[in-house]
């Protein structure tokens, strides 16, 4: 941790990390939006899937046994809720999410899985301050999973602030979808 590394380049360039955006039906919590970053750069670029669909399904379930994945993709299963949305300026987890969080806690305990909680805010407010706010949201979810018995060793948080919006837009509809914590099962 915190080690100094002299190296050339850290990158992460899309070409190699890119995850294909096909299939999988999407998560019920993820809404698509076609008005994305600077589409003028890419002309009629056909990437219409929401930014987070591929991330949640391909990346978020990496740590889930292949046989269990259907449960996470079944809208009737509480495990399918892998995004917790928040009210404006709030880090309180609404009661409607408690059943899903309990299901995630039970699954994580049973499998010894490591869960990463990725926090996000809407675009309002300054960027690094929003990183702080988003972490606070991730910590709220973390506390609930801890109370449900998940070990601290199996819980991590990462805060993106406003940098990784699920939806690009400057209205409450977009903001409401961006104030969120995503539940990621680590590899």
């Amino acid at each position, binding site marked *: 941790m915190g080690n100094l590394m002299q*190296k*050339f380049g850290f990158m992460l360039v*899309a070409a190699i990390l890119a995850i294909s955006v096909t299939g999988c039906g999407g998560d019920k919590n993820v809404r698509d939006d076609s008005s994305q970053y600077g589409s003028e750069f*890419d002309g009629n670029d056909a*990437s219409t899937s929401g930014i987070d669909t591929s991330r949640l399904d391909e990346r978020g379930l990496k740590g889930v046994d292949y046989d269990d994945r259907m449960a996470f993709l079944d809208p009737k299963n509480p495990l399918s809720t892998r995004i917790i949305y928040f009210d404006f300026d709030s880090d309180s987890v609404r009661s409607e999410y408690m059943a899903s969080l309990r299901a995630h806690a039970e699954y994580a305990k049973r499998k010894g899985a490591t869960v990463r909680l990725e926090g996000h805010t809407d675009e309002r407010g*300054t*960027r690094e301050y929003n990183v702080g706010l988003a972490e606070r949201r991730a910590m709220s979810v973390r506390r609930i999973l801890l109370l449900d018995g998940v070990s601290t060793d199996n819980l991590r*948080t990462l805060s993106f602030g406003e940098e*990784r919006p699920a939806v690009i837009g400057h209205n409450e509809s977009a903001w409401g979808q961006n104030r969120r914590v995503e539940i990621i099962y680590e590899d």
Partner: protein
Amino acid sequence: MNMKFRNLLSGLLLITLATPAYSALKIEVTEGVTGAIPIAIAPFKVEEGFAPAEDLAAIVEKDLASTGLFKIIPRNKHLGNPAQLSDVNLKNWRTVGSDHLVFGQLIPKGQGNYSVRFHLLDVFKDAGGAQGFEIDAPANALRHAAHMVANRIYERLTGHQGIFTTRIAYVTAKNTKRGPRYDLIVADQDGFNAQTVASSSEPIMSPAWSPSGQHLAYVAFDIEEGLAILQVQDLRTGAVEEISSREGINGAPSWSPDGKNLAMTLSYHGNPDIFVYNIASKKLQQVTRSPAIDTESSWSPDGRSLIFTSDRGGSAQIYKIPVGGGNAERLTFEGKSNSRAVYAPDGKSIAMVTSSGGYKIAVLDLRTRDLRVLTDGRLDESPSFAPNGQALIYTRSTGGGAELATVSIDGRVKTRLRQLGEVREPSWSPF
């Protein structure tokens, strides 16, 4: 494995180092001052048979115009094109409404190299008072030479050091077929020579120039490891040094004025606090200790204190604390919230984002405690002072997104630096 993976990709970074960014910024003055100084820049004469690759006088015109402080007399109005003092007819320049005249010549030095020999003349004074200058203009740095000419003129006529040879760093975000792409870009302050210095499919945040202008500190994300990484990149070699990738937040870097320390926000201990990291010893010292969010620190020019954003009082406000820790003093009381403050180069004022509904750029005079709101955007952010303290560059929200803009510290002069796509987090280099 992580390090191996990064090394594997080093070639890609090298490619981006040599790749000009997609499009240059284009400056447009949206509000100027009444009483701007009328000035004519005569095209620099050059011997027949020589054709310099750049129109240096035109670059000087654009530089001066971009400050909003000058009214450029257009070339097609010029009566004559003097190369030396004996060619100047003062009456002609008064007739076209100019107060000042810049004229001169490019002396060929071989292999495309030149020397600019020029004069600055007050056309209402005795021509004998003309000031002469000579600046080297190597073939590969003609634009730079023109910016140096503009610096000299600006300094003579305003009394402030010119910023035309400085640079800006900023981040762009765009969507590609392969998903989001974030670029860290360094460009001349007029938007030319834009170079992508780092690229990622994950966010890049908070670029901060080292006082020497040789390094940028910024935040990147390693999504495989689930980490935010605060790192420093050498702009000459491209080498990246990882400063912190602890659990949680590793963000908001701010250099000490001597370049030996970095203030940053870390949360590995449970919640965001300000820390100071010594680059040579790698020692970390905690500065703030509160259960609130403490972040967005900026180092005072005298090196003794840090200002930062904290919501310890219920809403985000700006506080000041000695670098060694101790009691924090609250500096802002107006507005619903105030955040992301930066010290002016002279340390006498701070710029910040103030909110009473929308988010606007404001400057607080630390002596009078007078808060002046400079912009009127919906979501303006990321103010960064020009190194001469005369203007701020910031992100201005527009209908569909954001663009870079500048505002003079008295709020009278505004410019827009237009570029397609999401442009954000400008940081103005030191001199």
